[in-house]
Structures are given as C-alpha cells and as structure tokens.
C-alpha cells in the first residue's frame, strides 16, 4: 500500500511538472507581446521595453520558464534598484494591470472559491447519495418515479439559468434575502452565510441531480450482485446489507467522479461566482481574460490544473483504500 501511494505521488509530481511546462508554453507562444499587455493602449514604447526587461520577457523562453519555476519555490524580484518589487514564494508572476503579485490575487480569491466548493460539495453529496439510495430502494414505486422526473429536470438545466432564477426569485422577488454581499466568515458570519447559501444551493441542486442518478443506478446494479444476495442469504439485516454490501460497491465509482467534480469547482466555479458576484477565483480568471492579464491567466490556469492533478491522485489513493483489488500486491 505504501509503495502504491508513493508511486501515485511521484507520478503526480511528474505530471505537475509537465502541466506547468505545457501551460506556460501555451501562453508564452501566443502571438501577442506580453510586455505590450502590461500597460494601457497609449503606452510609450520605452515603458513597454522597460517592463519587458523587468518581467524577463526579453529572455529566451526556457530561461523565462526556469525563472517562473524558481519563483514558485524561492520567490521572485522584478526589476532592480528602487523600482524593484518582490513577490514572495510561491510567486506565480506579477500582474501589471492590478499591480499585485498573482499569488496574492489568488490567495485573496481562493478562500471564497474553497468555501463555495466545499459547501456545495457536502450538500450535493448528501442530497445526491441520499436521494439516489432512497429511489433505488423504492424502485418502481412512486417515490422512484418522482425522483426520476425531478432529476431529469435537474440535469438538463444550465447553471446560469438556475442561478439567475434562484437569485431573482429569492432576492428580488420574494426578498427573503438581501442581495448577496460577500464577507469572510471570520469577519461577518451572517453576511458570509447569506451570500453563500444561494450559490451553494444552485451548485448543489444541479450536481445532486446527476449524483442521484449515479447513485440510484449504482445501488440497483450492486443489488444484483451475487455477493449481495449471498449477504441476504446469510441472514443479515437489510440495513446491514445496504450499508456493508450495497453502498460500498455503489459508491466507489462515484468517489472518482466526485473527486474530479470537486477539483473542477475549486479551479473556479466561473458561472456561479459571476452570477452571485462572489469574489472567487473563477471571477478572477474571467477578468484576466477580458483584461488580457496574462500573468493572472497563467496563474489561475496553473492552480486549476494543480487541483485536478491533486484530486486525481487523492481519488486514486482513496480508491485503493476502498477497493482492495486496486492495490498493488
């Protein structure tokens, strides 16, 4: 088991290196001049040239990449003398548009995204797995049919539509909640919760629908397994059979999908954050695109990729813990 985990982690590190290189190259090879993007339209050529040197864009690409990687571990100082400024490790670059280190920008927005994702994730897993199991246990009865109608509506709705609908009905029409205004939970728990509850519900309801389906099908499939019948034939209680035999088998494949979905959310729940104007990473990324803020774009893309790779690794390891057949002898 330990060698299995070690191997996974080693593999993840290699993958991360490859991803960072790929991401960096992708943006570096764009036909635009990154230095020209660092200041407004009527920028003086001298300033552009100066920025180019300051940011190291005058160096060959491999040198730039090396600086970039070094920055992640050791921090990075741009320019020299009085006008030098330093982004401490982990430095992901410097945004001229916002006059901030990219890592600072991400650091500010990440908690919002993390809270959003975590809350929605917990909610949707509870809702999805619970309803799915319930529907499977009542297969063919009205409870099952109702669930299937609701979920088929749920899976076909786009996020922005549900988000706007919820926002409109609860905030503008019913006025049950004030217009969301984000505050960090340590600052003002009440504001935090009122700002989060709608996005949580929006995200959770949508994913819960597909997780209900996945769980229902998984449970039904598992109930046909011989070992489940054998469990019943041993004289076990229904509850025990469901818990120890059926759910265990049904949930393992779901873990994989859930892990990746969660990572994707962490990488930025772009639509939801925009609809509810939450200052999260998704919005940061969107803004960097519209503002042509290349360093931020590279930074957020990279962070999102890191989450996916980490999630994959964790999922693999969890899978190995849950299913002994996956472990390497």
């Amino acid at each position, binding site marked *: 088991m330990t060698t299995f985990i070690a*191997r996974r982690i*080693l*593999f993840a590190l*290699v993958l991360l290196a490859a991803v960072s290189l790929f991401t960096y190259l992708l943006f570096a090879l764009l036909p635009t001049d990154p230095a020209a993007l660092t200041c407004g339209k009527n920028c003086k050529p001298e300033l552009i040239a100066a920025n180019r040197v300051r940011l190291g864009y005058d160096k060959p690409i491999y040198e730039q990449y090396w600086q970039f990687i070094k920055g992640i571990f050791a921090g990075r100082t741009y320019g020299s003398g009085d006008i030098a400024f330093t982004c401490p490790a982990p430095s992901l670059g410097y945004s001229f548009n916002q006059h901030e280190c990219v890592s600072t920008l991400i650091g500010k927005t990440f908690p919002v995204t993390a809270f959003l994702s975590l809350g929605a994730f917990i909610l949707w897993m509870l809702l999805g797995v619970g309803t799915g199991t319930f529907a499977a246990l009542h297969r063919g009865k009205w409870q099952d049919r109702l669930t299937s109608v609701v979920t088929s509506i749920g899976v076909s709705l786009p996020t922005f539509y549900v988000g706007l609908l919820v926002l409109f009905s609860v905030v503008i029409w019913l006025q049950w909640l004030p217009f969301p205004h984000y505050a960090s939970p340590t600052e003002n728990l009440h504001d935090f919760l009122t700002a989060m509850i709608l996005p949580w519900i929006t995200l959770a309801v949508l994913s819960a629908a597909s997780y209900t389906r996945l769980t229902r099908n998984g449970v039904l499939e598992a109930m046909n397994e011989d070992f489940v019948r054998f469990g019943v034939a041993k004289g076990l209680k229904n509850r025990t059979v469901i818990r120890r035999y059926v759910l265990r088998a049904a949930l393992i494949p779901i873990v994989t999908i859930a892990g990746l979905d969660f990572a994707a959310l962490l990488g930025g729940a772009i639509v939801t954050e925009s609809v509810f104007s939450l200052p999260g990473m998704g919005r940061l990324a969107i803004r960097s695109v519209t503002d042509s803020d290349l360093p931020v774009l590279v930074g957020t893309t990279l962070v999102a990729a890191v989450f996916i790779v980490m999630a994959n690794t964790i999922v693999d390891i969890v899978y190995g813990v849950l299913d002994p057949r996956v472990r*390497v002898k």
Partner: protein
Amino acid sequence: MSSEILLEGKSLVKYFPHGSKGIFGKSDGFVQAVDGVNLVLRKGQTLGIVGESGCGKSTLARVLTRLIEPTSGNIILDGRDITKVSGKELQSLRRDIQMIFQDPFSSLNPRHSVGEIIASPMRIQNIVPKGNEKLRVQELMELVGLNPEHYNRYPHEFSGGQRQRIGIARALALNPKVIVADEPVSALDVSIQAQILNLLEQLQHDLGLSYVFIAHDLSVVRHIADEVAVMYLGKVVEIARPEVLYSAPAHPYTKALLSAVPSATPRASHMHSRIVLQGDVPSPINPPVGCRFAARCWKAQDICVAQEPALGSQSFTSQPEEGLVACHFPENSN
C-alpha cells in the same frame, strides 16, 4: 490419412507483460500464456484443443488468427508464412481465417441487426456489391439454420443457440478456409450444444472447412476432432487422435482430466476410481521450471522437477500415429 497441411503453428510463444505498466511501475514478469506450441491443421480436418481455463487456449486462438502477434514462432497458412503480415495483406488474410467466439451474448453488437452483423465482414472487405448483400446474408442465414426472414431482427430477440448460429454465419461470410472456434458451445445448454456441433460438422462436410476447435469440455471435442491437443499452463502436454487419447491417455494430466468428467450413469464413480487433483494450477507468471504439472502429479520423480519433458512420441512405440506426449513417465509405458 495425411491430407495436405493447411495451417501450422511452429514454436508459438506469447508472453504478456504482467503487473502495472505505469511510467514508474516495473513489469514484474511475464504471463507465459502460450509457451512453445507446435500445431498442425490438415485440410478438411478438425484440430481440437482442450485444457482448463487459463491454460492459454484463447491466446493461442488469437495468435493463430493473427488477432495478436506472437512473441516468437511462426504461423504458416497454405505454405505461406503469415507471422509478420500487416496492413492490406493482413486484411485479406482475414478472409481465409475467421473466428467464432464463446459468448453468444457479448460477441454480437446489440445495436446492429442480424443482417448487418452477418454482412459486416463483407463490408469491411468491400466484397459484395450493395445490391447482393441481402441475398448473400439470407443465404448464409439459411445455411446455418436461421429463418432468413429474421434478417432485420436484433440479437436480443434470439436465444443463445440462435445467436451462436449468427456468429457462425458471420464467420462463413467470406468463405474462409479455416475457422478457429473458441469454446463455441461452452455457454450453451446440452441439447443446444448438440445442435451446434451437428451444424458445424455439416458445414465442414459441405464446404470443406478446416477447424481449430477449442473447448474445456472433453466430450465435446471428442466428437468433432480428428486430433486433440491437451494444454496445461501454456504448453501442449499431449496430442493424439481421439480414439487413442480417450481410451489410453498417456499423460497423467490427460488421465486426471478425463477421470474428472462426471459421467451420466448413476454412481459410475463407484466403478472407476476418480483421480482428484490436489491444489490449483500454478501461476503462469513464474511457472515451474521442470514439468509444469509436476507439483500436482502423483507420478512425479526428481527428474520431473529438474528437467522439462519434451513433447515426443512414446518410447515404447514406433508408430507416430499413437500421438505425442510430454512426460517423463507416461502412462501405458511400463
């Protein structure tokens, strides 16, 4: 008896890398699925291959049909070495060798109609012009005992036996010379097995086909084969004509295998003393060095563990007709 040799396998070997093959995962050895097999199939005849699951029968079938490439060894069809053919040549080779699979449920695409399934080899090979396709398919359906009017039905509308007929019709579509049938009746009920076996014999007679017929059931092979090869752990341990093999098995494994088959005569077990083999078949990953059967053999001596017995004619007989056996102490040899 010797008619012309049609298909020949020479020292066929197929190893699969074992274990995780990730970037850093080392392969911890090879599954020696097929390890040095020599076979000869003569024109119009049937070569039976029997052995327990995992002994390499399907792998051998896939090597012979060139669905996978052997690790080493040669396959010769009609005097031509086909071990290395690829591309267009390989495609036209498919016309000569066709395969029938064990599972009549998963080997047919459930979303294609029977007509499409049977016609698919012709379409791939661009053989029959569009207009004639239906005619040819219905002719094939009739040949294998299916109602040609069911041309547009889907596999799930057929029973297991009928599906196996569909598989056979598909294999016949290109007028092959050789059909390799990998346990074609194992998944069927006895009464249906007999129907399919009769059909295969009839087709062989009418179309002059040659079969490689794989089974784990000894009685099935006995009926259809002109020669039977017994495999154990990737090797052929005995090969003989069925009259000889079934009445006087020479290899201890063949003997045990035969005695394990329950006979449909009440309490027959009281009459013949059954040999119940102990333990399991060893792993094909690091198979024993000497005789692969030695650990379970009641006749094994030191030499069996130390030295691999070669497949050869029994020392006591000069007739090659008697068959070949790979054993240091074959039965009937005292």
